């Protein structure tokens, strides 16, 4: 009997301790909602804390879920800064008027294609859409030149896609807006009819390509670099579509300040820090993304990104049309 009582006491102590810890949280810190994981940005935010003395509390999570949380919280969110994987989710919040305007000198560091026209968000790093392929199964010379070619009989059914992935959806949005909804619909339907293998996300595609389960797949460029870091023997390689092809779209991670933190200098300091040369260098070398602040070069193994050669598309426009895109994908039979 005494043993049981002791264990109940232990339970009770835990509950009590938990409640107290929660009440003890201070509010003298900068609160960041980050859709980018701790592995990617944790070390950088620590540096920010060391250099500025500003304490940062970070809520990590899924970009889309955090955007929904911010929308639900509305004007009195505890968050000061939202760091997002994609312009789509940030655009959703900008449309809902939940984001503050950023400083002009911060905005001007980034090409206008990678920031919001009203100055509500700015791109931090770029992820390029590429075709990842298994070099043991496909010759480099046999790869498609355009993303629109993947439905040619030669490639039909051999290219995997991730219909629920945010970057894939951003690409489809761009395709619909640049080439027209009919082209986008036709392209999706072609994939579905060809029996294109579908996966849950970029990771699952690169993993399946490395196993040889599927020969090629449409993903963001940096996943393969991650794979090769941990498994240098993997036969996976990136193929960038021809210059100017929409398949080589660059999608930016974005940072924004919430409406409630419009006058918070610390929030502006963090945004400026993420675009500083130090941070941009960190992203280029550690996460293999393209630095978007002018004057910082990508990592040597990633190679330069010729902004002139990437499709002339405004990331700003990816925010709108997200639900239309999801409907388009669902109706095509690719599933969602």
């Amino acid at each position, binding site marked *: 009997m005494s043993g049981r009582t002791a264990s109940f006491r232990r339970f009770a102590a835990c509950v009590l301790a*938990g409640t107290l*810890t929660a009440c003890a949280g201070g509010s003298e810190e900068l609160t960041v909602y980050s859709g980018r994981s701790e*592995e990617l940005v944790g070390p950088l935010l620590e540096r920010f804390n060391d250099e500025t003395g500003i304490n940062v509390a970070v809520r990590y999570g899924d970009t889309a879920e955090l955007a929904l949380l911010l929308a639900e919280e509305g004007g009195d969110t*505890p968050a000061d800064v939202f760091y997002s994987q994609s312009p789509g989710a940030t655009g959703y919040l900008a449309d809902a008027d939940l984001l503050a305007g950023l400083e002009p000198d911060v905005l001007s560091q980034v090409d206008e294609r990678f920031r919001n026209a009203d100055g509500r968000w700015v791109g931090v790093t770029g992820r390029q859409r590429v075709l990842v392929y298994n070099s043991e199964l496909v010759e480099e010379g046999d790869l498609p030149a355009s993303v629109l070619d993947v439905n040619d009989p030669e490639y039909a059914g051999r290219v995997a896609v991730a219909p629920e992935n945010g970057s894939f959806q951003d690409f489809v949005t761009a395709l619909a807006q640049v080439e027209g909804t009919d082209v986008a619909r036709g392209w999706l339907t072609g994939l579905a009819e060809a029996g294109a293998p579908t996966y849950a996300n970029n990771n699952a595609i690169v993993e399946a390509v*490395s196993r040889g389960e599927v020969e090629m797949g449409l993903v963001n460029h940096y996943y393969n670099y991650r794979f090769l870091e941990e498994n240098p023997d993997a036969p996976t390689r990136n193929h960038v579509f021809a210059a100017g092809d929409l398949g080589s779209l660059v999608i930016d991670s974005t940072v924004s300040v919430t409406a409630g933190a419009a006058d918070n200098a610390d929030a502006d300091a963090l945004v400026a820090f993420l675009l500083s040369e130090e941070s941009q260098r960190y992203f280029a070398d550690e996460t293999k993304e393209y630095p978007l602040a002018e004057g910082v070069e990508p990592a040597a193994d990633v190679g330069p990104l010729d902004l002139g050669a990437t499709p002339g598309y405004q990331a700003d426009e990816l925010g709108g049309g997200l639900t239309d895109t999801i409907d388009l994908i669902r109706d095509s039979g690719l599933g969602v």
Partner: protein
Amino acid sequence: MVSASDLLARPRDRARRARGGPRRAPGLTLAVLAIAACFAAPFAYLVARTLGLGTPALGLLGESATIAPLLRSVALGAAVAAAATVLGVACGWLVARTDLPGARSWALLFALPLVIPSYIGAFTLQAAFATGGLVATVMEPLVAVNLPRIGGFPAAFGVLTLLTYPYVFLPVVARLRQTPASLEESARLLGRGPWATFATVVLPQVRSAMLAGALLVFLYTISDFGAVQLLRYDTLTRVIYASRFDRPAWLVLSLQLGLLAVAVAAGERAAMSRDRAAGGRVAPGRGALRIHLGRVRIAALALSGGVVLFALLAPLGVLAYWATRGIAAGGSGFSGLGELVEPLRNTALVGLAAASAAALAVLPVAYHSVRHRGRLADVANALVVGGFALPGLTLALALVTLVRAAPALYQSLGVLVFAYVVHFGAQTLRTAQVGVAAMPPRVDDAARLLGASPLRRLTAVELPLLAPSVLAGAGLVLLSTMKELPATYLLAPTGFDTLATRAWGAMEQAYWAQASVFALALVTVSAVLTWVFVLRRSDALA
């Protein structure tokens, strides 16, 4: 004094009268009302928001685009529940009733697959067994293995069965440990074989525990997103996820899933009330019968080994491979075990807090719903069970809205634990109900005759008898909480990481080694806590 009308009354009514009807326990009724109100909160939010949308949104309910995924959810849930029941009962019987070598170790191993998050389970099993996976690679020098692509219904069915059968296993073991083996002994002495004894004596005794577990498996499966998303089986949760930026559709479909759970819970309750008399009563006693497996022992060991191999060792093996590969290559981002300390502490803290809070919170409901029966009991039961099937994201966002009004509580651990209790309370409710129903009325009657007060009867007689069932249920909540993601992400205090959130975050960005280390730590801490708080204690109580 026993009156003639008492003798003529049906046994259940007689039992109720002997114990006093609802009139005589206003405290209990009030407690159940309060608890039911807590569990009703997210449903009330969903219903209110859905009604606010007007009729066009409600039209979504009848659309074929949502009906087909709903039917797939039900089909998958039913198939997984059936298979997990067979597996869970078989493993439970082997551990509790046979001389299976190392039964106590098997008991822990059989329970653990429950802690593997379904997305990690699906991803690792795919990496192990799919085309060009680890198994094929290892076997290649010996024999060409051409494994198919893993996906769709068969894969989702297999993975979810392997990860959910502990929902049946734990309650069945708790039940078997508590029921006297004397009937089985008699059956054996009268010449019945082990199978006949199992079918005619054991099965009826564990039936209620088995059904309780099967219901949990069904609810887990219909609310699962991780496995079906990765394995490409288009259930309702995937449609809900896809519609998350389309608020009306998202609300209506979430509510649809919750209502499905409530309907299933009500159906199960109706089935259980017919079945109630069949369940054997508890008579705790030591030295339960151990069937000598004899030659079947090899087959029993093979079955046990197979289950543990596929459900536990294969996922863990892949994680261990990823961890060593990445750390050896030097590009893992892994910065030492120190990084584990805080998430590990947080995980254990919320797991234990949610498990104990859930066990305590639903006990009055379990009592009331078994002893008193009636509309309040039915409603409370359905609400508690329904909470398990609401998608985690839906539940979390509902609570965000409800708690926003109280800034002091918002993003506090108290609210997070509350969310876990609402989400997982069903797991301990059903096992507690089985325990309450199995309590022999004579024990309580004897205590009453000896003049014990209601409180003393509760603490000295009833709770000790209930403890094994309640512990089994608390164990389920513990394991579920430690791997929970959406509510933890949205409701925890900012900066509060658990092993599960770290594992998922790392995996999303293809930090395989890092993700694997967190996942392995999660399984380890789950094993320790399950052993210390659940299995060891229920051994002692048996």
